[in-house]
């Protein structure tokens, strides 16, 4: 057991999967010779060569499409897109092709690609590097969308994603690449499906995914000091959603807050609220609350940026509201 950073966990998963199966390749901008913007493929170019750790030109739609084509003939490409903003350029091949090929071929073809991309805000990267598009991918049939919150999931879910026969979108986060966690030395896999209760509680359920799980955990600590025992639920998979675990938790706590770094409209929180309405409306003792980003392009100015993006303080205040304390 060693404490490793999120980026090291991703790198280790790449390394093991590439060693295990020569059909696994990595593709993306600057991932080879340069070692990757987030170091997720550091050293792998030297180890596996340029045919398997492929530096691509800045052509997101077509290199993603090339990965998809390769996956249709048995390869297992792990495609890195440097920022989820740039994944918008690859929507045609991801949404129109990868997500639909199995279905429109009547199950006769498949696209087992993995697309990894950071999809959150960092610090003052401004509007074109700060998009959070989880809600867009989770509305696409035929994709899996997962959001590892720490090194254990980052490692174990990437390994599962490589072996899974579906196209998997892994949404990482710029502010998590250096986040550390004790990770077992022996190989393991983490399933792509299933929400996880990462902190047990009885008074309120704080639902998060990706980086917002950490905001929920921080808020839960503060709530504890106020005598409120919060449960924290990490969705882990946005598509498919684990509505059963959400229902069970809400039926236990009777109160719920959803924390998302995405904007609210047609978002993850909206979807979770709808599911709660459908599945356990009568279990609720209070109106649910969504904590989310402001519905604006992310501003450059640090003060404005901070105001646009939810914080642990926002989650804490929101929870107090659900609890009727303010």
């Amino acid at each position, binding site marked *: 057991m060693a404490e490793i950073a999120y980026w090291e966990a991703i790198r280790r998963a790449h390394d093991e999967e590439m060693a295990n199966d020569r*059909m696994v*390749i990595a593709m993306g901008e600057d991932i080879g010779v340069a070692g990757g913007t987030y170091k997720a493929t550091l050293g792998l170019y030297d180890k596996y060569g340029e*045919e398997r750790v*492929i530096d*691509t*030109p800045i*052509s997101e*739609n*077509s*290199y*993603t*499409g*090339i*990965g*998809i*084509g*390769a*996956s*249709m*003939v*048995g*390869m297992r490409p792990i495609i890195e897109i440097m920022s989820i903003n740039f994944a918008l350029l690859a929507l*045609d*091949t991801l949404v*129109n*092709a990868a997500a639909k*090929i*199995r*279905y*429109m*071929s*009547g*199950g*006769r*073809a*498949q696209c087992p690609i993995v697309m990894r991309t950071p999809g959150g805000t960092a610090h003052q990267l401004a509007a074109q590097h700060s998009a959070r598009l989880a809600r867009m991918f989770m509305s696409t*049939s*035929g994709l*899996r969308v997962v959001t590892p919150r720490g090194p254990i999931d980052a490692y174990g879910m990437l390994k*599962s*994603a490589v*072996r*899974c*026969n*579906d196209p998997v979108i892994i949404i990482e986060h710029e502010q998590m690449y250096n986040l550390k966690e004790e990770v077992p030395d022996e190989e393991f*896999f*983490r*399933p*792509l*499906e*299933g*929400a*996880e*209760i990462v902190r047990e509680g009885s008074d309120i359920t704080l639902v998060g995914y990706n980086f917002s799980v950490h905001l929920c955990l921080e808020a839960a600590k503060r709530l504890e000091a106020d005598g409120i025992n919060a449960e924290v639920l990490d969705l*882990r998979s946005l598509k498919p959603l*684990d509505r059963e*675990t959400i229902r069970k938790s809400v039926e236990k706590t009777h109160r719920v807050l959803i924390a998302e770094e995405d904007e609210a409209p047609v978002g993850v929180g909206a979807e979770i609220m709808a599911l709660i309405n459908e599945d356990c409306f009568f279990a609720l003792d209070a109106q649910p609350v969504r904590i989310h980003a402001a519905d604006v392009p992310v501003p450059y100015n640090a003060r404005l940026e901070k105001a646009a993006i939810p914080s642990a303080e926002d989650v804490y205040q929101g929870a107090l509201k659900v609890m009727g304390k303010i």
Partner: protein
Amino acid sequence: MNDADKKRLLKEMIFFRRFEDRTFEAYMERKIGGFLHLYSGQEAVATGVLEKAMLGKGTDNDYVITGYRDHVHALKAGAPAREVMAELYGKETGSSRGRGGSMHIFDPSVNFMGGYALVGQPFPLAAGLAMGCKHKGSKQIAICFLGDGANNQGTFHETMNMAKVWNLPVLFVCENNGYAIGTHIDRSTAVKDQYKRVCAYDMEASQHDGMDIETVMEAAEKAIDFVRSGKGPYFIEFMTYRFRGHSMSDAKGYRTREEELEWEKRDPIKIFSKRLIEQGLITEDDIKAMEKDIDDEIENDIIKFSEESPEPKVEDLHKYVLDDDPDPRWIGPLQQ
């Protein structure tokens, strides 16, 4: 080419024309829904190019991929005609189990990797198929058929660049029929000769008559040999014409009857029939008998099969969205 092959190829092209004509009738009878884009007029291209490809070996075939005008490419690649027609009928026995329709014929059992509605999307997919061939060290290549209209997509430029940089075994076949849906190439495209556009990527390319199957085959053989020998991608352009509209809803108001008649004189089936008659290989009566055999087969076997096949079950609506039999080690669910 021996005499038997010549006669076979003529018969194949006539079959493809009659198959498309019959889908037109079925569409008018509302047996076929959605969009229907017919290949009539361009038969010499798919037939001639794929005649020179590695086919007949199932999943060891060359890979073939194309746009939405895909019936004939699928048929020539080896997809059973019954299944292609049944797909148009939306039946469970169809090539894509009734889930794809006319624009999305798939038959991976013969490496026909699909028809795609997004113009330009098959470019990168084809390069990916080629990357797979290269990675496996196989002699297979990928062959991508698209129209001149697709060349104005960004994927054209992105993919030509990567195919060349990575030396991928892919043959891009441009079927230049002069129209991007209903807009003439002169009004949409700065460079008229499509093969010249890939000079920008230092790619080998050439342009040929696409109405004469023997010309097509000769050119395709050279291009395929080039790609298969590991020299990298090749772009081959064939000048051709579609005799029908872009799709069934097309009134063809964008082109003149004179232009159509000019091209109809160069009908690939007429050209090849005439040549075989002149060479004494076949008579007008033989061709009539051939047509009758084809029509009988289409009606009594292919259409009958499609009519009688079952529709997909409504309870199977959610099948094929994701892997229907996933490995729980990777998928879960998570044990709490």
